[in-house]
């Protein structure tokens, strides 16, 4: 660039190109560093899950070792199998998600559209329940569930999860419904769709991104929940988060099995995240720009 007699256009072009390349490189370095910090524990757990318990405790930690699948075999099919717990988690998270959507979607639609008395106040109180620290609720919830005999039942735990997921889901969905122009719904009403078919054929297709985001958030929250599960669950209802905790005992911690269990527990989460990546990013920015969340 500096040698010879470059034409004006070329030299300007080269400067711009170099600047761009430097910026791209810097971005890659920064992103790489951040990614490494985030990914390190995950990758370490992944490595640990393929080690024997003896290799795990080796010091300095060995990066080169003979991988084994025995941890996975034990965790899945051994005496301390977490398979029933994965099923338990699936039931709890699945039921919470389904019920949440079943109630949250119509509720959010009503809050966004209909002129209900006290709408503004109810909108606030829906969110206010999110502000309570969960720990403060454990004892009352425990007593209530005990009184009605719902401790260690799926129904009991799912209902408790609903008290958290419903307000959150409603709050999230309202902004999506508000983004749908009112005239579009009116057009559907005039086209003789009626309110239910207008909702189904015209409104819901336009908030499907919001439904995807809500589904994922609610499912993940329920799947990852530990505190309520460990207190309100028991021998019958024991989600995988609680089961993994049992690998840690007073005498010893079975790191390799814990890691293998964690990998298995994470798999659906990561899978879901990958599938819905596009929707999640869009969902987090919805409302930033008027109509920016929809396509």
């Amino acid at each position, binding site marked *: 660039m500096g040698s010879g007699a470059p034409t004006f256009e070329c030299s300007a072009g080269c400067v711009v190109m170099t600047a761009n390349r430097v910026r791209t490189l810097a971005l890659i370095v920064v992103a790489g560093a951040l990614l490494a910090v985030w990914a390190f524990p995950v990758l370490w757990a992944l490595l640990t899950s393929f080690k024997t318990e003896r290799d795990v405790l080796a010091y300095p930690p060995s990066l080169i070792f003979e991988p084994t699948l025995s941890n996975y075999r034990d965790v899945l099919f051994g005496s301390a199998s977490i398979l029933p717990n994965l099923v338990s988690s699936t039931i709890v998270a699945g039921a919470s998600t389904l019920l949440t959507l079943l109630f949250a979607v119509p509720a959010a639609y009503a809050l966004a559209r209909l002129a209900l008395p006290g709408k503004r106040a109810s909108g606030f109180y829906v969110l206010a329940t999110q502000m309570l620290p969960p720990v403060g609720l454990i004892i009352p919830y425990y007593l209530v569930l005990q009184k009605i005999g719902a401790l260690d039942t799926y129904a009991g735990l799912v209902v408790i999860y609903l008290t958290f997921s419903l307000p959150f889901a409603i709050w999230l969905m309202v902004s999506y419904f508000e983004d749908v122009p009112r005239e579009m719904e009116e057009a559907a009403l*005039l086209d003789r*769709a009626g309110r239910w078919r207008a909702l189904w054929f015209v409104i819901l297709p336009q908030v499907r991104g919001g439904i995807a985001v809500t589904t994922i958030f609610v499912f993940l929250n329920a799947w990852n929940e530990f505190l309520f599960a460990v207190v309100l669950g028991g021998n019958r209802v024991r989600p995988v988060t609680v089961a993994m905790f049992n690998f840690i005992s007073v005498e010893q911690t079975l790191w390799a099995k814990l890691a293998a269990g964690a990998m298995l527990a994470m798999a659906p989460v990561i899978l879901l995240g990958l599938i819905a990546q596009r929707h999640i990013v869009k969902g987090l920015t919805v409302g930033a720009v008027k109509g920016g969340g929809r396509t």
Partner: protein
Amino acid sequence: MLAGAPAATSVSREQRAGRVGMRGIVKRHGAFTALHGIDLDIEPGEFFALLGPSGSGKTTTLRILAGLEPLNEGRVLLDGEDVTDREPGERDVAMVFQSYALYPHMSVYDNIAFPLRMIATPKDEIERAVRDAAGKVRIDHLLARRPGQLSGGQQQRCALARAIVRKPRLFLLDEPLSNLDAKLRLETRVELRKLQRALGVTTVYVTHDQEEAMTIADRVAVFMDGRIVQVGRPQDIFARPATAVVAAFIGSPPMNLLEAEVRDGALHVAGVVLHPDTPPGDDGEVTLGVRPAALRIAPTGVPARVDLLEDLGDSTIVDLDVAGHLVKLRADHHPNVKEGESVHIAFASDACHLFDRRTGVRR
């Protein structure tokens, strides 16, 4: 469409002719009254414009007609039948919204087919009707596209096709041309008129553009502050505006209004005494209205000073200062005056419009 059908064999069709009646419609938003008792009759097949400035209640009236807006008092009649409490979908009316309100997740074909699918029309019949409607508005080559892939004008046509596809008894158009650019607006205006003539469906058209209303409509209702101040054929409203406000709203440029006084059967304006052919009525303060085209520069008359000449090519608008008031004069030729020059203006006696100064009502 229905006018030519023999009355004896088409009783049911006659019933759906699209006759509109609105009786004493009152609409309040809290303490604010948006509509103060609207009475309106629209004949079958008529192209009827609701004209008025923004906030005058014309769109609210249209939405009440559609059933999208609840009302506080009054009745809505369609073909003599009280539909006040009917849902929008039960009224057999179609509407084109200002924003078009197309369904963005459906193709143009599905958008147009939607109203037919909602009433469980057989598939081949839908196909035929959609192609027919799309052909009428010339978007039959765009049926596979999504609304987002259409230009503004094409979206507008798609909305029109969705309205005409199910052959309703009434079209409601809410400022359908306002989102189009000026050239397209003029073209579409003409096409809309032709389309309405061809279909013969009663059409209620909301606009704030007086020129649009005057050129497109069979009859016009002029809205001011939640009231209908005048209903009539465009030429009648132009010729005899009912109030000074209507006079100032209609025409381009609108009518000149000057403060004047009637004393002893003569008209006193800007220090000049005029003797109209027809007696100007009782003594009192009046507003004198004269159309720009009715004014001419003359050797004698009301004194004025030329402020500005606007050459429009085929005609010229002369801005005049008459006793401190702006008066516009429209001349077909290039008038032989210069800016800053003092002149006199005159007008024929029958070009005078006199309005009561206090009430604004025509004398």
